[in-house]
């Protein structure tokens, strides 16, 4: 089912070859949302959202707290009812979840403190029994890097280790589609990197992943496409590398000259660098070329949603 091409990036880690422009058409749709709205009393949490997520894609939903992203995801997960709009997740309306549908999706919720007294292995095995096509519990524990802790009670795990149990329980049923709600909140940097590798591996095996996150580097590292939600609407959507015109925005060239830092904004950074190289006759001191980061674009988008 997966038509992705994988290349080894310059860092030696797996990274996904961009294919959003070329292969979207003709792929099967994992999630389709049209005109979704949801209101809590006076508050319009979701004000008309359209989304298409293809099978095999890693899709990140970004947005500030209260923007409506959790509501949107919880409607797709079958946890909440909607006021209006069409939603189809793996061809099923999540407003009427069935057991068969539930066994095809995996959900990793935000913080939970349950199953404290059971060990990791007991818990994963127990949950494996819920699914018709469960993975091997020991393999899943291995995948999330908890083999050493398999016999430990969940109460005694660190926050990051607990989160991996959540992921193990989310994937134990071999889901076709996995929802991850702010999966790495509270992780140390090393644990986050390991977690990213886990997600990349799952995506590599063809699992569709829908992820919400506050970390823009996370979205950039993992997602094929991102949608920025603000005020209950999608204000931008696309490849994280080109979102909001990032790739073609003015670049800032910086260097050091006569003991101070200089910079210039330009549409033609290559020419500027060549000029500088000529002027310095070779190496330009402290040379940098930067374009707006995803964070810059994101902050601009949520401040001026139009």
């Amino acid at each position, binding site marked *: 089912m997966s038509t992705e091409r994988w290349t080894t990036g310059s860092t030696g880690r797996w990274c996904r070859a961009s294919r959003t422009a070329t292969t979207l058409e003709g792929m099967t749709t994992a999630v389709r949302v049209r005109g979704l709205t949801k209101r809590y009393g006076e508050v319009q949490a979701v004000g008309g959202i359209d989304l298409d997520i*293809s099978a095999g894609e890693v899709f990140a939903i970004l947005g500030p707290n209260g923007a409506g992203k959790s509501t949107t995801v919880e409607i797709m997960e*079958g946890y909440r009812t909607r006021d209006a709009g069409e939603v189809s997740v793996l061809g099923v309306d999540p407003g009427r979840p069935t057991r068969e549908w539930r066994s095809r999706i995996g959900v990793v919720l935000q913080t939970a403190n349950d*199953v404290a007294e059971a060990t990791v292995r007991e818990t994963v095995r127990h949950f494996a029994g819920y699914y018709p096509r469960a993975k091997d519990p020991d393999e899943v524990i291995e995948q999330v890097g908890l083999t050493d802790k398999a016999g430990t009670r969940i109460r005694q795990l660190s926050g990051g280790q607990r989160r991996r149990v959540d992921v193990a329980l989310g994937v134990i049923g071999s889901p076709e589609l996995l929802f991850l709600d702010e999966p790495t909140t509270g992780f140390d940097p090393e644990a986050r990197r390991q977690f990213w590798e886990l997600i990349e591996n799952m995506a590599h095996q063809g699992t569709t992943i829908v992820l919400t996150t506050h970390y823009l580097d996370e979205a950039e590292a993992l997602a094929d496409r991102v949608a920025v939600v603000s005020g209950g609407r999608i204000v931008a959507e696309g490849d994280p590398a080109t979102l909001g015109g990032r790739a073609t925005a003015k670049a800032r060239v910086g260097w050091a000259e006569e003991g101070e830092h200089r910079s210039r904004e330009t549409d033609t950074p290559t020419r500027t660098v060549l000029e500088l190289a000529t002027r310095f006759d070779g190496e330009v001191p402290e040379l940098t070329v930067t374009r707006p980061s995803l964070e810059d674009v994101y902050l601009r988008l949520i401040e001026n949603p139009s």
Partner: protein
Amino acid sequence: MTQTVTRAPAPPIDRQPSAIRLGLSRAAFETKTFFRERDAVIFTFSFPIVLLLIFGSIFADELEGTGLNVSQLYVAGLIGSAAMTGFQNLGIGIAMDRDDGTLKRLLGTPLPRSSYFVGRALNTLFISFCQVVILLVIGVALFGLELPSEPSMWVTFVWVFVLGVFGSALLGVAVSSLPRSGKSASAVITMPFVVLQFISGVYIPVTQLPPWLVNIASVFPLKWMCQGFRSVFLGDAGATLELAKSYELDRVALVLGAWVVGGLVLCLTTFRWKSRRDG
């Protein structure tokens, strides 16, 4: 986007695990983890035992003209109380499950909702059964309780126990929606349970209570459960101590049966899978 929507190819039809088997699996999982929470285990099991030891030792007198002593009355009452532990266990346990994410996590899996309740119910039945056995052993060993020898008495015991456990368990499931959070659950649920024990004849014989309190108690299952257990453990000699001068077993069956049915309806109509903050 001009993408055409095509349905994902239908996956091969999988056999879903049976709801009964999953209920048994839940029961085993819950029971295993329950017994690991040592403080809760000690509290649950020692509470009726300590009360039996205290009351049984203080009131060792013989009851007028019956050949029975007061401690036997307490054994019967505390067995009623033990059979109603489900009210407390489930009222608090489910409120905690709702608060700590257990219910939300389960809701996201293909586990049938009924399997969760089957697991909870069997777990409750098992814990209540253990408590009753311990109380009977102490009653026989220390307080001269005589176990009934006629099979018909044990038949009565079984139906009072099963109807009582399920009726009060369902009531517990229903009240689990009342506490605002898992933290407050223990206080919210324990209070009415203790009050109910005092007005239902567990600690104080119903004959010594004002009629209006007896009327209140008569609405709830505990009074009838205690009455049923007295009929088993005190026998005909004790019937004269009852308000109606009889154990009224037909009414016991009626009220407990009504609680099983009514409790089920109450649960189905009021049960919340989500905590208040989840909307």
